[in-house]
Structure formats: C-alpha cells, structure tokens
C-alpha cells in the first residue's frame, strides 16, 4: 500500500467518520446557540444595549455599568448576603452528609441500611416549588405545624418567614432536610471501596468503632471530600437561586437579596439588560477565579485536583 501524505490521510479519516460528526451535530448546534451566543452577548456589559441594535451594534460605554454596581448603596448588603448564605450552607450542609454516610456505613443490618438510604434520598426529588411551598406552609406563623410545636414547648411563636434574621437558617436547614441523604451516595461508594484488610488490621490492633472511623474511614474518603469541596467552592456565588427567589418576600428581603435575585429583578423584570449583564459577568468571573484558586491550592497541598 502506498503511503498517502498527511493532510490527505486526515481528510480521508474525516470522511470516514462523517456519520459520527453528523451524530454530534445536533448537540453542537444546541450548545453553540444556547451557550456560546449568550457568552458572546456578555459584551453588552460594556455597552448600552438596545433591542434594535442587538449584541453587536449597541454603543460601547466602558465600565459605566460596573461602576454603578460598585457604588450601589446596597452593594455590600448583596455581597455579604451572598457570601454568608453560602458560607452558612457550606458550614452546615457540607459536613452533615459525610457524618451521615459514616453512620450509615456502620449500620450492618442490611434491611435497616436499605431503608435509611431509601428514605433519606427521597426528598431530593421534590421540586423546588413544592419544597418552598412546604416550608411556607409549615412555618406559617398562625397555622403552621412547626409553630404549633414551638408554641406547645415554649409558649410563643416565631415569624420565620417575615423576620429577616431567620431567613438564612430556614434556607440552610431546609436544604439539609432535602439533600443530606442524597449527598451520602458518593461517600458511601468511597467507603465501600476501602480495603477490608485495613479494617481487619485495625480490629486486631484493638481499635474500637470510633477509632476505626477516625483513623481508617475518614482518611479513606478524604480525596472524595476534597474534590466535592472544590466543586462546592466553585459554585459559591451562584447556588440556590431558585429557592432563594421563591422564599424571598418584601419582609425578609434585607436578608434574602443576593446577587442573582437582584439580577433577576432588575434585568428580567425591569429590563435593565446591560447593567445586570455586567453584574452577572462580575459574579461569573468571581466564581471562576475562586474555583481555579481553590483547585490550585488543593493541588499544591494534597495532589488532589479537578484537572
């Protein structure tokens, strides 16, 4: 067989695979239109967008929109709400699935174990609208089940939904109820992968169950914990938007207004497209930088990283 020269060979290869390219085409067209065109549209953060002129032809205005955002009186309130809500969720919502997985791993009765998993995973599938509806129903000051319970114990009621001080707690703990079980799946798989000989050896050395958890289970799943932590950190400034929006009301808005709900209100409802695109871009860049930073740090310290 004669050896074809290189570009020719490549062309033949592409022709050979054209059916595969056709199979990729719908997905590629979708991703280009609905993901890359909006990315291209980010330029309006530096322009004054007008419907008639489109992304391309609207006039440039420099950093005007960013300046307006940084000078906004509620700027720091938005930032601190966004950061604290996410930090609160990280502090509570991240460790609980790990603890739960360690406990489930110690339940040796198969039936019991299966039931725990089946039941704790279930709330994950409740929609965010129904979840928020349940929260509002249960926490209702006059008629809510939880307030009836609190009144029986303490004699007074709590205005969970109208008191800004309660918003973040309600948000975080309802999230724990809904997602802690589902969050154990990956850890349980990692725990199942720990070498049984290690566990045998620890028994022979006379370690009790708590010592075994501390010295074998936890180090065993540490890489998994770290990877998930990096992923959560990279999502720090954008998570939970749909639920926050649903639970937000006029009375708790001081504590519940985060960057993304502000963008929704002024952008979609109020039509200030360029201004809110600038805020969205600021937010996305912050997120991305955080992800890269945390990943680099993890890589340096522990040799575990996303890429």
């Amino acid at each position, binding site marked *: 067989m004669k050896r074809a020269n290189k570009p020719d060979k490549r062309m033949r290869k592409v022709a050979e695979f054209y059916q595969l390219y056709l199979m990729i085409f719908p997905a590629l067209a979708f*991703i280009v239109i609905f993901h*890359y065109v909006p990315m291209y549209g980010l330029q309006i953060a530096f322009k004054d967008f007008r419907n008639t002129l489109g992304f391309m032809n609207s006039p440039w205005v420099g950093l005007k929109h960013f300046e307006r955002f940084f000078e906004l009186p509620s700027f720091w309130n938005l930032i601190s709400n966004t950061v604290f809500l996410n930090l609160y969720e990280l502090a509570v919502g991240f460790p609980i699935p790990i603890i739960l997985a360690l406990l489930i791993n110690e339940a040796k009765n198969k039936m019991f174990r299966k039931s725990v998993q089946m039941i704790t995973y279930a709330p994950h599938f409740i929609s965010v609208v129904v979840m928020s509806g349940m929260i509002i129903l249960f926490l209702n000051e006059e008629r809510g089940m939880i307030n009836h319970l609190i009144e029986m114990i303490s004699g007074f009621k709590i205005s969970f939904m109208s008191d800004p001080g309660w918003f973040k707690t309600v948000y975080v703990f309802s999230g724990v109820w809904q997602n802690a079980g589902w969050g154990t799946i990956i850890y349980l798989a990692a725990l199942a992968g720990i070498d049984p000989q290690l566990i045998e050896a620890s028994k022979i050395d006379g370690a009790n169950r708590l010592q075994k958890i501390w010295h074998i289970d936890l180090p065993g799943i540490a890489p998994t914990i770290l990877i998930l932590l990096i992923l959560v950190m990279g999502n720090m400034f954008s998570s939970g938007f749909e639920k926050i929006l649903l639970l937000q009301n006029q009375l708790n808005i001081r504590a519940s207004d985060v960057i993304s709900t502000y963008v929704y209100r002024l952008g979609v409802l109020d039509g200030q497209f360029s201004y809110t695109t600038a805020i969205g871009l600021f937010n996305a860049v912050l997120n991305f930088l955080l992800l890269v930073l945390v990943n680099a740090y993890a890589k340096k310290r522990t040799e575990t990283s996303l890429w």
Partner: protein
Amino acid sequence: MRETQFDRIFYIVNYAVLSIVMLAILYPLYFIVIASISDPQLVSTGNVWIVPKGLTVEGYQNVFKNDVIWTGYANTIFYTIVGTAVNLVVTVLCAYALSRKHLPGKGILMGIFVLTMFFGGGLVPSYILIKSLGLIDTRAVLIIPAAMSVFNMIITRTFFQSAIPDELHEAAKMDGSSEWHTFIRIGLPLSAPIIAVMALFYGVGHWNQYFSALLFIYDQKLYPLQLVLRNILILNQQLNMDFSSVRSTDEINVLVRQANMAESMKYALVFIASFPVLAAYPFVQKHFVKGALIGSLKG
C-alpha cells in the same frame, strides 16, 4: 474477635440516631398526607399530629374543580415526555460519537462542551437571546433551550467508553459496517441501562422545572404544573372553592374557614404534584444511584 462494650453501645446509639433521622425526614411528608385529608379547621389550630382527624376529601375536590390544575398537569406531562425524548436523542447520539477513541478532533469538541459547565453567558444574555428568537410563549421554549445537559452527556459517554470495547468497533468496521450501522446494531442495544438512567434524570428535571417557564411563558394555557403551583403555594393566589358545606352566616367565621380551606387545598396540591415522582421513586431508586455514581467517577 469479640465486640467490646464500647462498640455495642456505639451500635445502639448509631441505630437510634439513624432511626431519628429517618423519622425526621418521613414525618413532614406523612404530615402533608394526613393534613390534606383532615378537617381544615383542626389542621390550622394544630390538632392534627399523628392520625388524620375529621376525615374529608373536600380539599382535593376543590383543587380538582380548578381547570388551571388540569391544564398544568397535562402541559407538564407533555413537556416531560417530549422534552425527555429530545434530550435522549441529542444526548445519546453525541455521547456515542464522542466515546469513539479515534475520532479526529474529539479533544477540541469535548473542550467546547466542557467549557460551558464552568462558564456561561448568564441569565440576562440568555433571556435576550430567547426573546429575540421569538420563543416566548411557545411550547418549544421549555424543550429546545434545554435539549441537552453537558453533564449528562459526559456520564453517557463514560458509559459507552466502558461498555463497548474498542475491538468491537474495529471488528464491525472490518465487516464493512458503517458507523451508523454499528451504532444501531451494537451501541443502542447495549445502552439500555444508561438510557433508563438518563430518562429518569431528564424526566424528573422536566417535571420539576419552573424557572424557565417563569421567564418565558406568560400564556396561562401553556403553564406547566410547577408554575401553577408557584402562584398558589408561594404567591397565595386563590383557587375557586365550594362553600356549600359552610352554613354559617357569620361573616368572619366564613372568612376564617375560607382561609383554612385554602390552606387545606395547598396540602392537597403538594401531594398531587409530588405523588407521581415519589410513587415511582422506590422502583427506580437504584438507577438514580447508579447514575449519580457514574457521574462522580468522572467528576
């Protein structure tokens, strides 16, 4: 090896803690059910705890008298079935092709897809795009802009990579089978498990979706169930209700009863909206777990 005293106590405490966790998760769900079939007055005053009291299905009857609920339900079924079908076609085709080891340009194509997982145009540019495409108030807006999740595509691709060894492709090629034929005769038959997992992931996603509808659907006739629910559960929009059973002439009493009935209808609604997903859940749970695990291997 004998269990020590400490370990025995540990096991007992562990079982107790996990039992409490189960109870804490089950009880709110159980409460929704008993509250929805109890006398609204007794629920509102905090008298229903363990078993339903003053058994009634009035809440459900009132909910079902509202056409918005039926329309929403029908719309959601449509969006879920059509949307999931589109998702599966786009995802499986793309994932299969990208799972082929020797495909030229594979790295670049993967890069194009993966980048969108970490960076995007954000809410407002996407909103402007959809608006200028004229998709507002069409059924397509809940289907086409959600045609594929890159994350799910990568899970599916991982599956294909491990399920079909490269030698099989080579052998098929030697036999003169075209790429498309190989996909139909080998790829598809082997992909049943991943298609099941993906159908579930996408299906639940469509069933629970509300935000796209909030952004792009203004015509009530096109509302999915979740948007109807949002208006009632969150914004407190009143549904029609029948008060033939209330005979009081006392004005205030009627208002209180009306408020309580509205509350009771909300419990009924929560049950109606979540029932299909939660009823199917025990039977398909292991597929979900499998999907979540394939995903984590890649992540």
